[in-house]
Protein backbone atom coordinates (compact mmCIF):
# COMPACT_ATOMS: atom_id res chain seq x y z
CA UNK A 1 0.00 0.00 0.00
CA UNK A 2 1.35 3.41 -0.86
CA UNK A 3 1.11 6.14 1.75
CA UNK A 4 1.47 9.68 0.58
CA UNK A 5 3.21 12.25 2.72
CA UNK A 6 0.92 15.15 3.72
CA UNK A 7 1.41 18.36 1.80
CA UNK A 8 2.13 20.26 5.00
CA UNK A 9 5.24 18.20 5.74
CA UNK A 10 8.71 19.66 5.53
CA UNK A 11 10.93 17.39 3.44
CA UNK A 12 14.70 17.30 3.78
CA UNK A 13 16.91 16.13 0.96
CA UNK A 14 20.39 15.39 2.30
CA UNK A 15 23.28 16.66 0.17
CA UNK A 16 26.59 14.82 -0.08
CA UNK A 17 28.43 16.87 -2.68
CA UNK A 18 29.70 20.40 -2.32
CA UNK A 19 29.01 20.84 -6.03
CA UNK A 20 25.29 20.54 -5.31
CA UNK A 21 24.98 23.83 -3.49
CA UNK A 22 26.42 27.31 -3.44
CA UNK A 23 27.54 28.19 0.07
CA UNK A 24 27.96 31.92 -0.49
CA UNK A 25 24.62 32.55 -2.17
CA UNK A 26 22.98 29.81 -0.07
CA UNK A 27 21.45 28.14 -3.09
CA UNK A 28 20.66 24.55 -3.89
CA UNK A 29 21.65 23.39 -7.37
CA UNK A 30 19.70 21.03 -9.59
CA UNK A 31 22.19 18.19 -9.08
CA UNK A 32 20.86 17.79 -5.55
CA UNK A 33 17.44 16.74 -6.85
CA UNK A 34 18.30 14.69 -9.93
CA UNK A 35 16.58 11.33 -9.30
CA UNK A 36 18.29 7.97 -9.52
CA UNK A 37 16.92 4.53 -10.18
CA UNK A 38 15.89 2.82 -6.97
CA UNK A 39 16.26 -0.95 -7.12
CA UNK A 40 13.95 -1.24 -4.14
CA UNK A 41 10.94 0.38 -5.76
CA UNK A 42 12.15 -0.19 -9.32
CA UNK A 43 11.65 3.34 -10.50
CA UNK A 44 13.28 6.73 -10.39
CA UNK A 45 13.27 8.34 -6.98
CA UNK A 46 14.78 11.13 -4.93
CA UNK A 47 15.10 10.12 -1.31
CA UNK A 48 13.88 12.54 1.37
CA UNK A 49 13.17 12.64 5.08
CA UNK A 50 9.82 13.81 6.35
CA UNK A 51 11.20 15.98 9.10
CA UNK A 52 8.03 17.78 10.03
CA UNK A 53 7.96 16.55 13.59
CA UNK A 54 11.70 16.69 14.15
CA UNK A 55 13.92 19.33 15.67
CA UNK A 56 16.89 20.69 13.72
CA UNK A 57 19.23 18.51 15.75
CA UNK A 58 17.12 15.42 15.08
CA UNK A 59 17.10 16.06 11.34
CA UNK A 60 20.89 16.34 11.25
CA UNK A 61 21.10 13.28 13.44
CA UNK A 62 18.98 11.33 10.95
CA UNK A 63 21.21 12.65 8.17
CA UNK A 64 24.28 11.19 9.81
CA UNK A 65 22.94 8.01 11.38
CA UNK A 66 20.64 7.04 8.54
CA UNK A 67 21.44 8.75 5.25
CA UNK A 68 25.21 8.99 5.64
CA UNK A 69 25.55 5.58 7.26
CA UNK A 70 23.55 3.94 4.47
CA UNK A 71 25.87 5.21 1.79
CA UNK A 72 28.42 2.80 0.39
CA UNK A 73 30.67 5.41 -1.17
CA UNK A 74 31.90 6.96 2.06
CA UNK A 75 30.63 10.43 1.26
CA UNK A 76 29.98 12.72 4.17
CA UNK A 77 26.89 14.81 4.73
CA UNK A 78 27.53 18.37 3.55
CA UNK A 79 24.18 20.15 3.65
CA UNK A 80 20.50 19.63 3.14
CA UNK A 81 17.75 21.10 1.01
CA UNK A 82 14.42 21.66 2.76
CA UNK A 83 11.24 21.91 0.76
CA UNK A 84 7.57 21.81 1.63
CA UNK A 85 5.88 18.67 0.40
CA UNK A 86 3.06 20.71 -1.14
CA UNK A 87 5.63 22.58 -3.25
CA UNK A 88 6.80 19.25 -4.66
CA UNK A 89 3.23 18.11 -5.28
CA UNK A 90 2.25 21.41 -6.89
CA UNK A 91 5.28 21.61 -9.15
CA UNK A 92 3.63 22.66 -12.39
CA UNK A 93 3.77 20.06 -15.18
CA UNK A 94 5.83 17.74 -12.95
CA UNK A 95 3.06 15.57 -11.49
CA UNK A 96 5.39 14.27 -8.77
CA UNK A 97 4.29 12.24 -5.76
CA UNK A 98 5.86 11.84 -2.32
CA UNK A 99 5.46 8.30 -1.06
CA UNK A 100 6.55 6.88 2.27
CA UNK A 101 9.14 4.09 2.13
CA UNK A 102 9.90 3.15 5.70
CA UNK A 103 11.93 -0.04 5.39
CA UNK A 104 15.07 1.72 6.59
CA UNK A 105 13.70 4.71 8.50
CA UNK A 106 10.18 5.45 9.69
CA UNK A 107 10.27 9.00 8.28
CA UNK A 108 11.86 8.15 4.96
CA UNK A 109 9.99 8.92 1.75
CA UNK A 110 10.69 9.08 -1.96
CA UNK A 111 9.85 11.74 -4.49
CA UNK A 112 8.44 9.55 -7.24
CA UNK A 113 6.49 9.69 -10.47
CA UNK A 114 9.21 11.49 -12.37
CA UNK A 115 8.51 12.26 -16.02
CA UNK A 116 9.77 9.70 -18.51
CA UNK A 117 11.65 12.20 -20.65
CA UNK A 118 15.07 12.99 -19.18
CA UNK A 119 14.92 16.68 -20.00
CA UNK A 120 11.56 16.95 -18.21
CA UNK A 121 13.16 15.25 -15.19
CA UNK A 122 15.90 17.84 -15.34
CA UNK A 123 13.38 20.66 -15.46
CA UNK A 124 11.55 19.22 -12.44
CA UNK A 125 14.80 18.78 -10.50
CA UNK A 126 15.76 22.37 -11.30
CA UNK A 127 12.38 23.66 -10.12
CA UNK A 128 12.65 21.75 -6.85
CA UNK A 129 16.17 23.02 -6.25
CA UNK A 130 15.06 26.60 -6.82
CA UNK A 131 12.14 26.26 -4.44
CA UNK A 132 14.09 24.55 -1.70
CA UNK A 133 16.02 26.17 1.10
CA UNK A 134 19.64 25.37 1.80
CA UNK A 135 20.49 24.44 5.37
CA UNK A 136 24.11 24.11 6.41
CA UNK A 137 25.20 22.08 9.41
CA UNK A 138 27.71 22.92 12.07
CA UNK A 139 30.70 20.69 11.34
CA UNK A 140 31.31 20.29 15.06
CA UNK A 141 27.76 19.08 15.57
CA UNK A 142 28.12 16.56 12.76
CA UNK A 143 31.39 15.25 14.17
CA UNK A 144 29.76 14.76 17.55
CA UNK A 145 26.90 12.86 15.91
CA UNK A 146 29.36 10.71 13.96
CA UNK A 147 31.35 9.87 17.05
CA UNK A 148 28.18 8.83 18.87
CA UNK A 149 26.97 6.68 16.02
Amino acid at each position, binding site marked *: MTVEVPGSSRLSRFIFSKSHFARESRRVKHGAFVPT*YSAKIQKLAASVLDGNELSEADIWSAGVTFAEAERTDGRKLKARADIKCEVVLNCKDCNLAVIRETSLHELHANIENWPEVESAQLLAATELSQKSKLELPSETELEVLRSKH
Partner: protein
Amino acid sequence: METHQSYWLPSEESEIEENRGGSIVEDQDTLSVEEADNKSRIAEILSGLAEILNEVFENEGKDSSETNITVSAVLDVFMALQYLHRVPVPDFMYLLGGGIGVEWLNEKKNKTFVANFRGNSKIVYAGLLGGDDKLHGSVPLQETKIKKLEYLVDDALNESI
Protein backbone atom coordinates in the same frame (compact mmCIF):
# COMPACT_ATOMS: atom_id res chain seq x y z
CA MET B 1 27.29 29.03 -42.27
CA GLU B 2 29.01 30.57 -39.32
CA THR B 3 32.13 28.75 -38.32
CA HIS B 4 34.09 28.84 -35.10
CA GLN B 5 37.70 28.22 -34.39
CA SER B 6 38.26 24.95 -32.62
CA TYR B 7 40.54 26.48 -30.01
CA TRP B 8 40.67 23.62 -27.59
CA LEU B 9 43.30 21.99 -29.70
CA PRO B 10 46.57 23.79 -30.28
CA SER B 11 46.77 25.41 -33.66
CA GLU B 12 49.09 23.82 -36.12
CA GLU B 13 51.41 26.81 -35.95
CA SER B 14 51.71 26.92 -32.20
CA GLU B 15 52.24 23.18 -32.05
CA ILE B 16 55.05 23.42 -34.58
CA GLU B 17 56.52 26.32 -32.63
CA GLU B 18 56.47 24.32 -29.43
CA ASN B 19 58.01 21.31 -31.13
CA ARG B 20 60.81 23.51 -32.37
CA GLY B 21 61.39 24.82 -28.89
CA GLY B 22 60.52 28.35 -30.02
CA SER B 23 60.85 31.36 -27.79
CA ILE B 24 58.11 31.56 -25.16
CA VAL B 25 58.58 35.32 -24.84
CA GLU B 26 58.08 35.75 -28.53
CA ASP B 27 54.93 33.58 -28.44
CA GLN B 28 53.49 35.67 -25.65
CA ASP B 29 54.25 38.88 -27.47
CA THR B 30 52.36 37.75 -30.51
CA LEU B 31 49.45 36.24 -28.63
CA SER B 32 46.26 37.89 -29.73
CA VAL B 33 43.67 39.08 -27.25
CA GLU B 34 41.30 36.47 -28.60
CA GLU B 35 43.78 33.67 -28.07
CA ALA B 36 44.45 34.90 -24.55
CA ASP B 37 40.73 34.91 -23.85
CA ASN B 38 40.42 31.42 -25.25
CA LYS B 39 43.23 30.14 -23.08
CA SER B 40 41.73 31.81 -20.04
CA ARG B 41 38.38 30.18 -20.80
CA ILE B 42 39.96 26.77 -21.24
CA ALA B 43 41.76 27.19 -17.92
CA GLU B 44 38.47 28.09 -16.25
CA ILE B 45 36.71 25.04 -17.73
CA LEU B 46 39.51 22.70 -16.72
CA SER B 47 39.61 24.16 -13.24
CA GLY B 48 35.85 23.65 -12.79
CA LEU B 49 36.03 20.09 -14.08
CA ALA B 50 39.08 19.34 -11.93
CA GLU B 51 37.22 20.45 -8.83
CA ILE B 52 34.37 17.99 -9.26
CA LEU B 53 36.67 15.21 -10.47
CA ASN B 54 38.79 15.65 -7.35
CA GLU B 55 35.70 15.28 -5.23
CA VAL B 56 34.83 12.06 -7.03
CA PHE B 57 38.38 10.72 -6.85
CA GLU B 58 38.43 11.28 -3.08
CA ASN B 59 35.82 8.54 -2.88
CA GLU B 60 37.24 6.35 -5.60
CA GLY B 61 37.43 2.69 -4.76
CA LYS B 62 34.69 2.79 -2.14
CA ASP B 63 31.73 2.48 -4.44
CA SER B 64 31.85 4.47 -7.59
CA SER B 65 28.64 3.15 -9.11
CA GLU B 66 26.70 6.27 -8.14
CA THR B 67 29.40 8.84 -8.35
CA ASN B 68 31.41 7.68 -11.31
CA ILE B 69 32.09 10.28 -13.95
CA THR B 70 33.03 8.79 -17.27
CA VAL B 71 35.82 10.15 -19.41
CA SER B 72 33.33 10.53 -22.24
CA ALA B 73 31.16 12.80 -20.06
CA VAL B 74 34.19 15.00 -19.33
CA LEU B 75 35.05 15.16 -23.02
CA ASP B 76 31.45 15.95 -23.95
CA VAL B 77 31.34 18.87 -21.51
CA PHE B 78 34.65 20.17 -22.75
CA MET B 79 33.62 19.98 -26.38
CA ALA B 80 30.19 21.51 -25.77
CA LEU B 81 31.69 24.46 -23.95
CA GLN B 82 33.99 25.08 -26.86
CA TYR B 83 31.01 25.22 -29.17
CA LEU B 84 29.12 27.42 -26.70
CA HIS B 85 31.95 29.90 -26.60
CA ARG B 86 29.76 33.01 -26.58
CA VAL B 87 28.35 32.23 -23.15
CA PRO B 88 30.22 32.27 -19.83
CA VAL B 89 31.72 29.15 -18.30
CA PRO B 90 29.00 27.62 -16.08
CA ASP B 91 29.14 26.07 -12.62
CA PHE B 92 29.89 22.35 -12.70
CA MET B 93 28.47 19.55 -10.60
CA TYR B 94 28.68 15.80 -10.57
CA LEU B 95 25.45 13.90 -11.13
CA LEU B 96 24.20 10.93 -9.18
CA GLY B 97 24.23 7.96 -11.49
CA GLY B 98 27.30 9.30 -13.29
CA GLY B 99 27.69 12.35 -15.44
CA ILE B 100 28.24 16.06 -15.17
CA GLY B 101 25.72 18.84 -14.77
CA VAL B 102 26.30 22.48 -15.59
CA GLU B 103 24.36 25.55 -14.52
CA TRP B 104 24.13 29.11 -15.76
CA LEU B 105 22.39 31.50 -13.43
CA ASN B 106 21.04 34.99 -13.84
CA GLU B 107 20.22 35.85 -10.25
CA LYS B 108 18.92 39.32 -11.01
CA LYS B 109 16.39 38.01 -13.50
CA ASN B 110 15.80 34.76 -11.62
CA LYS B 111 16.64 32.74 -14.69
CA THR B 112 18.41 29.41 -14.65
CA PHE B 113 19.63 27.31 -17.53
CA VAL B 114 21.00 23.85 -16.83
CA ALA B 115 22.37 20.99 -18.88
CA ASN B 116 23.39 17.42 -18.12
CA PHE B 117 26.06 15.33 -19.80
CA ARG B 118 26.09 11.55 -19.45
CA GLY B 119 28.84 10.85 -21.95
CA ASN B 120 26.50 9.71 -24.70
CA SER B 121 27.22 12.62 -27.08
CA LYS B 122 23.92 14.22 -26.11
CA ILE B 123 23.08 17.35 -24.15
CA VAL B 124 19.94 17.31 -22.05
CA TYR B 125 18.90 20.81 -21.05
CA ALA B 126 16.25 22.72 -19.18
CA GLY B 127 15.60 26.37 -18.52
CA LEU B 128 13.58 28.31 -16.00
CA LEU B 129 13.33 31.67 -17.65
CA GLY B 130 11.13 33.55 -15.23
CA GLY B 131 7.43 33.11 -14.43
CA ASP B 132 5.91 30.28 -16.39
CA ASP B 133 8.50 30.55 -19.13
CA LYS B 134 10.18 27.15 -19.08
CA LEU B 135 11.73 24.85 -21.61
CA HIS B 136 13.48 21.52 -21.83
CA GLY B 137 14.88 19.29 -24.53
CA SER B 138 17.95 17.53 -25.80
CA VAL B 139 20.34 17.96 -28.68
CA PRO B 140 23.10 15.82 -30.12
CA LEU B 141 26.56 17.12 -29.40
CA GLN B 142 27.27 18.62 -32.78
CA GLU B 143 28.36 22.18 -33.34
CA THR B 144 25.60 22.98 -35.79
CA LYS B 145 22.93 21.45 -33.55
CA ILE B 146 23.81 23.21 -30.33
CA LYS B 147 23.89 26.75 -31.70
CA LYS B 148 20.26 26.97 -30.61
CA LEU B 149 21.39 26.18 -27.11
CA GLU B 150 23.89 29.01 -27.20
CA TYR B 151 21.13 31.41 -28.13
CA LEU B 152 18.92 30.15 -25.30
CA VAL B 153 21.64 30.42 -22.67
CA ASP B 154 22.65 33.82 -23.94
CA ASP B 155 19.04 34.91 -23.82
CA ALA B 156 18.67 33.69 -20.23
CA LEU B 157 21.81 35.49 -19.11
CA ASN B 158 21.25 38.72 -20.99
CA GLU B 159 20.50 41.47 -18.48
CA SER B 160 18.71 43.63 -21.00
CA ILE B 161 16.04 41.07 -21.81
